[in-house]
């Protein structure tokens, strides 16, 4: 299993359909995942974390990613902008075909770059309710897809697709026993998902609240993940999104990570 890194987050939601004659969940997902065309991305990302009691914290991150179209390997660099006490903290991930990702963390308070464990794909992204797996692009072969039904949900005609792990390793790495996606029939965008933990209990609900047209495609720019077990919510908002701008490979290096904002 090879989970993709953070910056492919909207890719899974950037489900672009043309021929809507699919009859199986696998066909729909295959069509969607094979239509992605993002090779680089820059954006400002805002995370709003909220507890069940209404206590909120904000995080603002500037991020950059680049995917090699030949190998499909991604490099990603991320810098904290807000809050001020962590401003300048940087995070670099480099994917490889034949070994685990390299991950580097730059902590300006310590003036050091540390090469760190990759923490697995089930770890939470920036202490939010999104895991690295949630915001990455799954390998199609890692999951088995079944079209459960077609229904109108939130006023949108949708396919309801159940994704189950293809192997016990996928199940263990992601922490999910299944994921159910609501996929809009008109443009195959995923606008709602429900995640079930290893015991089969509903753990999280994802609602995409805003799509924007980027290069002619619908792009999820605001989404909310609600952990129903601990009653904690994370809102993720993309701003100033730019795709397919040229970013040199030398940008995704520990040297640039340390250079800071």
């Amino acid at each position, binding site marked *: 299993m090879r989970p993709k890194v953070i910056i492919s987050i909207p890719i899974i939601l950037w489900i672009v359909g043309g021929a809507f004659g699919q009859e199986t969940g696998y066909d729909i997902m295959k069509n969607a995942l094979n239509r992605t065309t993002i090779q680089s991305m820059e954006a400002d990302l805002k995370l709003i*974390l909220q*507890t069940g009691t209404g*206590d909120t*914290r*904000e995080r603002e991150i500037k991020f950059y990613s680049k995917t090699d179209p030949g190998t499909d390997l991604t490099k990603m660099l991320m810098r904290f902008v*807000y*809050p*001020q*006490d962590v*401003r300048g903290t940087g995070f670099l991930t*480099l994917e490889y075909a034949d*070994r*685990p990702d*390299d*991950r*580097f963390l730059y902590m300006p*308070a*310590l*003036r*050091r*770059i*540390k*090469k*760190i*464990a*990759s*923490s*697995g794909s*089930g*770890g*939470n992204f920036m*202490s939010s309710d999104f895991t690295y797996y949630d915001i990455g692009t799954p390998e199609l072969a890692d999951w088995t897809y079944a079209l459960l039904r077609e229904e109108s949900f939130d006023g949108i005609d949708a396919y309801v697709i159940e994704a189950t792990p293809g192997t016990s390793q996928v199940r263990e790495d992601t922490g999910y026993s299944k994921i159910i996606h609501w996929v809009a029939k008109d443009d195959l965008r995923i606008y709602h998902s429900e995640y079930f933990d290893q015991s089969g209990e509903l753990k999280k609900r994802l609602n995409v609240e805003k799509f924007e047209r980027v290069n002619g495609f619908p792009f999820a720019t605001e989404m909310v993940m609600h952990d129903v077990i601990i009653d*904690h919510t994370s809102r993720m908002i993309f701003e100033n999104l730019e795709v397919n701008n040229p970013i040199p490979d030398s940008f995704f290096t*520990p*040297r640039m990570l340390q*250079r*800071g*904002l």
Partner: protein
Amino acid sequence: MMRKLLVMLMLLLCAGVSRLRADVHFQGFLKSFAGVNTHQLTSSERLYSHLQMQISGRTGDRIGYRADLIGRYNYRIKDRTEALALYPAELYVDYYGNWLDVRVGQQYLFWGRADWINPTDVFIPWDYANMSSDIEDYRIPIPALKLSIFPTSGHWEVIYTPRLVPNEIPTPLIASVTDSSLGKSQYGLRYANDLSRVGWSVYAYRGWRKYPEVRPFLQSLDFPYSELTMLGGDFIFPGEKWAIKGEGVINFSSDRQGDDPLVDNDNIHGVLGVDWIPGQDFSLNIQIIVRHYLNLDPEAERQAIQDLADPRIAPTTITATNYSFSKLIRYNLTNFINLQSVAVFNMADEDWFWLSFLNWEIADATHLTMGALLFDGPPGSDFGNSADADQVFLQLKTAF
């Protein structure tokens, strides 16, 4: 007084420039710290407020700069002019070339991949009188020239510092160290490769120990700083939920024959540890630390110290090989509260220290920290000497 006025002027200049230039960034933090000695609960050991302001920016793609200026008011000093200390932390200019980065000025220099205990971390001193959660408190930046060279793979670091700055040690005996021991250069060279499966570095250093030797001299004590040559290396092998890392050096001291009881013998110093990160909310680091002295005759050194017959220099446990253990735990109790705990235990003297604190993010960029710093061990041992310095503390810090 003149120095304080100059620093104040710099602060005002920084603030003014930051408002004029969009590519200049201005940030900082304000914190108040209260520490109480657990053996004297009625009086505060440390009580101060600390304002730190940082200005940083760039001129084009090639030049960067940074200045950190600190104002600290110590409430335990009655005289208000004496209570206020103003001093710079980092002050440097960067040049970014195609294959060369240069940093000139007062700066922090860190080497090593282990946690807390880094045998290769030899350039900058510690401020043991000022331990806290902020590096600006317990490490001392020094004037230096650092060249970072980036060939096609890996990178080189070449460091030169024109003077030795020793550790700050909270002992009245050491307080009388004079500047005559300064004015000594340090040189260092490092090659690192972080992009291989196993990240690794090799090091070479020529300079000085940061601890003085306590040497009887007529009716007083002299505190010379002895020469040190270090060759070392480190590595990290990361996995998905763990990382194995190690760091080791051979230190060549000025006592190559091992016959001076007041100077460390040549020694091998190594750290081997593992990070374990089972989930987002918990991480554990444990390390074993070994120091082995070469050419050491413990009985002869002990006898030589006794022959000095100076009550100010007490013989301590002398063993050829010393083992220590350290652990570092981070645990997120809730979304906005985490616990951190660090401890070191020395096997030879059975002395230890333990630092633990709760950190509560009470609002964006504002943290309340409360914790304890405890020492114990037999008299004469590293941590046993600080057994009376146990402390509980509370800190409120907000960044802007």
